[in-house]
């Protein structure tokens, strides 16, 4: 039970035919559908937040497609979310004897960090995990579960704020974000003025490979290294993630599409065709632990990989020796134009201990704690002090460099967020289109 997020289990979608009808429904009926439904469903069964809340909507941004209940954040179209309530006042004392309720991906936070926090603030903790954000959203919407901190991805932020599931942050409790964290996150485009979120980890999506089987030069010498996943030489030993956004994004990038939030049916069809081809070409499998468990175990030679998984994999070799550590490598486009992302930390609207929650956010922004967490889960924190030289030469809490010299490609820098491509929020309708592609792949449909 050591390790990275046992991430996002498979989501699924509708057929493509379905998409047009549904997007039409969504576009035409966003405000009115809820009203109609209210008339025909029992009172009390109405979902939270079906429809833009308030007269002005949840926020302001340049990119607000028709039919979307919220503006979509893009690198060139930042979004400023409205404060649906005021942040908690500053200067409040921390709740005493509280149990900090954490809602997170499985195996995504180092318990040592949490324990130290609780020793420091004299509290207890309970960690509840979710397998994917769908599950997390569904459970949070019931309102029955009360958490203090929640770890979402950027691509559900609009929904969270529109449905008033998370609360605005009081900056005065989180000084370390300003002092320690990357410039990018001082005013992120997806949440201008970081009104609701602080960044948790940063990672790229590339390819992890067995260096003893595929020399670095081979993969770096390829004209389109993404194609290595389709190389029949690794038939049965090639894998992608059981995550629709990352895996479809890989197919888009392989096809030369740089918009990882595309609404183009043509691009998505081509991506689907490629994914389905991978089934017949190399018998590709989709899973969550293929990189950090599967590669050390010999189940895979190549695998689509989040940088954090590739970094953390050293922990899972049969023996803790450099002979083994050296067997895994990570490739990411050398022009740094690739899939890069960051995960978030937020405070749910019904958090029982909001002040303690803010303190915890700040705790994770400090260099020592962020790096202790990194040592364990392999996911890099956006810490200014953690530059390339530091990361490759300093030992982590377990006595090996944070990042092995041969894995430099896995390091994420502040500038990567300027050149890189992010997986961002889609309109509900487009999201269904993406799900369709993934469902078709899973069912092996051409």
């Amino acid at each position: 039970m050591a390790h990275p997020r046992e991430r996002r289990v498979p989501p699924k979608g509708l057929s493509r035919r379905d998409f047009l009808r549904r997007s039409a429904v969504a576009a035409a009926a966003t405000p009115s559908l809820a009203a109609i439904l209210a008339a025909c469903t029992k009172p009390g069964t109405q979902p939270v937040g079906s429809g833009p809340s308030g007269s002005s909507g949840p926020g302001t941004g340049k990119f607000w497609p028709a039919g979307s209940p919220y503006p979509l954040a893009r690198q060139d179209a930042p979004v400023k979310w409205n404060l649906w309530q005021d942040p908690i006042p500053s200067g409040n004392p921390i709740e005493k004897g509280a149990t900090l309720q954490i809602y997170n991906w499985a195996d995504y936070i180092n318990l040592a960090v949490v324990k130290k926090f609780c020793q420091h603030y004299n509290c207890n903790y309970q960690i509840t995990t979710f397998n994917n954000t769908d599950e997390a959203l569904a459970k949070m919407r019931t309102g029955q579960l009360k958490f203090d901190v929640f770890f979402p991805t950027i691509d559900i932020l609009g929904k969270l704020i529109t449905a008033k599931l998370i609360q605005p942050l009081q900056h005065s409790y989180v000084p370390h974000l300003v002092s320690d964290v990357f410039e990018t996150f001082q005013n992120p485009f997806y949440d201008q003025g970081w009104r609701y979120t602080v960044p948790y980890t940063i990672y790229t999506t590339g390819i992890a490979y067995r260096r003893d089987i595929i020399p670095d030069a081979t993969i770096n010498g390829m004209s389109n290294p993404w194609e290595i996943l389709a190389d029949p030489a690794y038939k049965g030993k090639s894998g992608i993630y059981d995550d629709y956004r990352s895996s479809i994004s890989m197919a888009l990038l392989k096809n030369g599409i740089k918009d990882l939030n595309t609404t183009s049916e043509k691009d998505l069809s081509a991506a689907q065709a490629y994914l389905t081809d991978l089934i017949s070409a190399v018998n590709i499998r989709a899973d969550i632990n293929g990189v950090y468990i599967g590669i050390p175990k010999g189940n895979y030679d190549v695998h689509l990989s989040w940088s954090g998984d590739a970094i953390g994999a050293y922990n899972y070799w049969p023996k803790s020796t450099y002979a083994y550590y050296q067997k895994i490598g990570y490739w990411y486009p050398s022009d740094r134009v690739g899939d890069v992302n960051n995960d978030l930390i937020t405070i749910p609207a019904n958090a029982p201990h909001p002040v303690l929650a803010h303190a915890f956010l700040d705790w994770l922004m400090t260099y020592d704690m962020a790096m202790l967490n990194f040592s364990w889960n392999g996911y890099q924190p956006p810490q200014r002090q953690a530059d390339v030289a530091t990361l490759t030469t300093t030992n982590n809490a377990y006595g090996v460099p944070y990042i092995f010299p041969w894995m430099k490609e896995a390091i994420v820098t502040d500038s990567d967020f300027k050149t890189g491509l992010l997986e961002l929020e889609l309109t509900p309708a487009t999201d269904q289109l993406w799900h369709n592609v993934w469902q078709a792949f899973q069912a092996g449909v051409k």
Partner: protein
Amino acid sequence: MSGRRFKRVSSKTAETRKEARARKRAQRGGAWYPRWYWPSFAAPGTLWMLVLFLLPFYVVVSIAFGTVDPIFQSPLPVYEPWWWTSKYLTEEWHLVTGEFVPVEVRTLVYVVIASAICLVIAYAVAYYVARYGGKRKGLFLGLLVAPFFISYLMRMLSWVELLQPAGYVNKLLQFLHLTPHPINWLAGVPFTVVMGLVYGYIPYMILPLFGFLDRVDSSLLEAGRDLGASPMRTFLRVTLPLSKPAILASLVIVTLPMFGDYYTNNLLSGSPKTLMFGNLLDNAMESTGQGPQAAVLVLFLTFFLLIPMLYYMRETARAAGER
């Protein structure tokens, strides 16, 4: 016809309530219970089943005929039949009868093969233990029951580990020089999935078969042997025909859950090449906007399995009634 009905009605009206009670009491051999007495025993169970078995099914139907939330894409069930919309239902039905057909066929093939293998092995083992177990019957029975005591998931996990490229199965095969390179058993191999299903479900088949064969009147079989019939012949002419109902019942017991199984396949393969119907269901459950789809798949599976389910229920009821 009408005359008889009239007669019955008139006789009933003529009979006083007291007389009727006395008659009923006589039928019961003298004991008397208040009329509400036995129903009150059955009431909690009946109520429970209505609220927690029938009602949930109605919610599934309401979701299949319902719509979805525009933001979260979560299902919005419609409970009033007059508000039902069949739009989502027909769309999903198109998938079930279109894109998903290969998956359905594959599921059917896997389940049929796995149940057939289960049957052959289970029958042989149950037959041997029942007929020839002798003094060791207790030991055998213990070993046959043992798999029930360890978690199904754990039994699958143990295979996942055995079948690793560096696991013991490959080590053994390489030691015996049966294969030069380790075989990647877990890379979407149909054989592995079917083997996993057999391994997982066979205990559920052996025990009922044993329970039956153990009770077959052995004098019948002795007679066959005394008359010089070969064991095979005695088996084919006597035992097998006798055990037909038990075979069918035990087949139903293992087949029904196999149709909904997703975890065996997920753990042992995870490849789209071996995707089964249960995976469609589970995937629909785990993703946004697929509420109606999950509901439709549930309804589809229920209707598909209705015949074997009703058969099993009839057999159970008949066996109970005939005793």
